[in-house]
């Protein structure tokens, strides 16, 4: 209805403008299908080429790498070799750091999901004084930069003997993952149908059973988003691990970072190493795109 009412003046307006728009109009017509497709293909190549470059670099011998570009592979596919990967996987430091990455990432993800959903449930469905204020305070912590905590926590961990341990890194990631977890899960849990919870309550379910049997299963989608997000965030982290680990407890990102300092001589370590470190996040990304995207949307302000 409103559009109908508004149409006449608008049409009149456009007619007035029409004589002036010839250039823009021609441009827009030019941006017809063909050009758009061309543009998007070029952009797509722009986005793919760097990653392909890394992959092909990791599959060439160091001597080939020092003399010619990775794109020469297309003319001479015989250059391809998995030599660098074999050497890398025999390197104890690298395999150990991969293990550390897993040992840090999995517990840090599980802890955030468990602790975050407990708190999220409390904020959504329990009544206690100052509930909303507490929740808003937690949300306020969403944007606190990790850097603020590096020095104080390094000092704290040093005092209580957690510095350099895997557990210390897990704790840190859990702490900084929690604001987002609580924010996301509280909002999702609050939308659950009240009748379901009341029904379970009338069946005599205690608070813990209500949480475990009703809220957690229903919260699946949000928990999946959170889990994927936290997993990728911890797996990909370098800064936190750089500060809080020492040589035996380094994850792959820190191990590779130390190699970057001699970049040029050791591309045969860096390229396959970087690619191995990317495989898991990429697999998670392709397998759970939808959850990943909804996590991104929910956390747009993190």
């Amino acid at each position, binding site marked *: 209805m409103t559009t109908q009412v508004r149409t006449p003046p*608008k049409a009149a307006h*456009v*007619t007035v403008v*029409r004589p002036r728009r010839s250039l823009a*109009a021609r441009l*827009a*017509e030019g*941006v017809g299908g063909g050009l758009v497709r061309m*543009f*998007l293909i070029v*952009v797509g190549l722009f*986005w793919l080429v*760097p990653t392909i*470059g*890394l992959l092909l670099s990791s599959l060439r011998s160091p001597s080939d790498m020092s003399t010619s570009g990775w794109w020469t592979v297309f003319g001479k596919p015989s250059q391809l070799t998995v030599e660098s990967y074999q050497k890398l996987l025999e390197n104890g430091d690298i395999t150990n750091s991969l293990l550390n990455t897993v040992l840090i990432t999995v517990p840090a993800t599980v802890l955030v999901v468990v*602790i*975050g959903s407990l*708190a999220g449930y*409390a*904020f*959504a469905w*329990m*009544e206690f004084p100052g509930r*909303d204020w*507490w929740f808003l305070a937690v*949300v*306020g*912590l969403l944007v*606190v*930069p990790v*850097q*603020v*905590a*590096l*020095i104080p*926590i390094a000092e704290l961990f040093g005092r209580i003997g957690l510095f350099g341990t895997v557990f210390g890194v897990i*704790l*840190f990631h*859990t*702490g900084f993952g929690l*604001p987002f977890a609580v924010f996301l899960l509280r909002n999702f849990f*609050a939308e659950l149908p009240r009748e379901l919870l009341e029904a379970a*309550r009338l069946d*005599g379910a205690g*608070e813990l059973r209500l949480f475990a049997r009703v809220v957690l299963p229903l919260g699946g989608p949000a928990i999946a988003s959170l889990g994927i997000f936290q997993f990728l965030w911890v797996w990909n982290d*370098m800064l936190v691990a750089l500060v809080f680990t020492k040589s035996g407890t380094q994850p792959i990102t820190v191990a*590779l*970072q130390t190699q*970057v*300092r001699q970049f040029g001589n050791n591309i045969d370590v860096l390229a396959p190493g*970087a690619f191995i*470190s*990317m495989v898991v*996040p*990429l697999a*998670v*990304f392709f397998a759970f*795109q939808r959850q990943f995207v909804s996590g*991104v*949307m929910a956390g747009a302000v993190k």
Partner: protein
Amino acid sequence: MTSATAAGASAAPAAPKSRKSVTGTRKTVAALFLLPALVLLGALVVYPIGYSVVRSFGDASGDGFAGFDNYKALFTDDGIRTALKNNIIWVVFAPTVSTALGLVFAVLTERVRWGTAFKLVVFMPMAISMLAAGIIFRLVYDQDPDKGVANAVWVGIHDTFAQSSAFPKAHPGRESPLTAQGGGFITRTAVHTGRPVALPLVGVAPDQMPSGAKKAVQAEPEPGRITGTTWQDFTRGKGVGRLGAVDPSELGYAGMRIEAVKDGRVVASAEAAADGTFTLPARADGARLRLPAGNFKEPYNGVDWLGPSLVTPAIIGAYVWMWAGFAMVLIAAGLAGLPRELLEAARVDGANEWQVFRRVTVPLLAPVLAVVTVTLMINVLKIFDLVFIIPPGSSQDDANVLALELYRKGFSEDRPGIASAIAVFLLLLVIPVMAFNIRRLRREVRR
């Protein structure tokens, strides 16, 4: 059991109110659910804020009180000043470029059938670590055009449009008629018509000779014109070939530019043919011949992406590669939620696609664009990994940003006071966003 009855009793009167609680839980139970989260948040997020504020007023050792000295250092320390300047460049350009690209991609992908595949490709870098992205772009930006793809493409384009000079390192041999002048070479004496000129040089590696070069030919004298030959006066093997004369197997300098100079002015010029011969008109009579410096430049070697002046834009490029997909996905979601009738109505009214985009789509998307830009700004404020990884040691100081400077001051230079001041400064910068988040949410919570 008791809690269940209690719940039944208190839930009933609570129901009509908008506050949701099914249970009328005892406060201790609520506290138990919240305790782990609050303890961790308190110890790992809130306590460090307080500590940093206090520490930022302390001196280097942490025992004494330093007043505002650490904050003064923010604006006097050279390293921090560079970092601050770069951070401003980052915050201004990285989010806006990413958002603009995201907007363009989101709008255009709606028009092609394989839009989803395209989105996947652009969004994918978000899943990988900044470390991996850093290594990827370290490779991309490699200075050597034979290794770095950015320079390979750039040099390719450059050499298509600009003529590359072919004779680096060429120079006169012994007893040469040529002498060096301003990066090029000039004949010692004036030349005259009817007497062929010899312009021999040596020193061009065989594989660097232009591919079109043919066997050099002694130029024939021509009345009323100046003729000559310029060639590589060198035959392999000791003592083979005569100095200053064209021998068989010696190659002409195809494409060499020759200028005739009289009283400091160029009166004529020519380019050598494939066999090294050239011809100049009569007005060059009495001039000296010059091989200008342009002939002897090193071949174009591309852009020094990671050099001091370009390093920050180059890293921002890597960041945009990672985050344009984020902007695109959020904007695409916003686009899907737009009322199609409005766009159609505008088209029916005769608006072209550009007008629809500029006057309808963008204004309607403004809230989404704002959220995306602000999110990226916060993200960029904390940028660390890319700046830590991509620049080579020589230009790391020029690429410096606050988060990196904080790390350096705190952990390599052992100056926690200044590092804490940087931390507090970063925190102050995000506080407006914090307030905005809380205000937006308070309305929702109070529903």
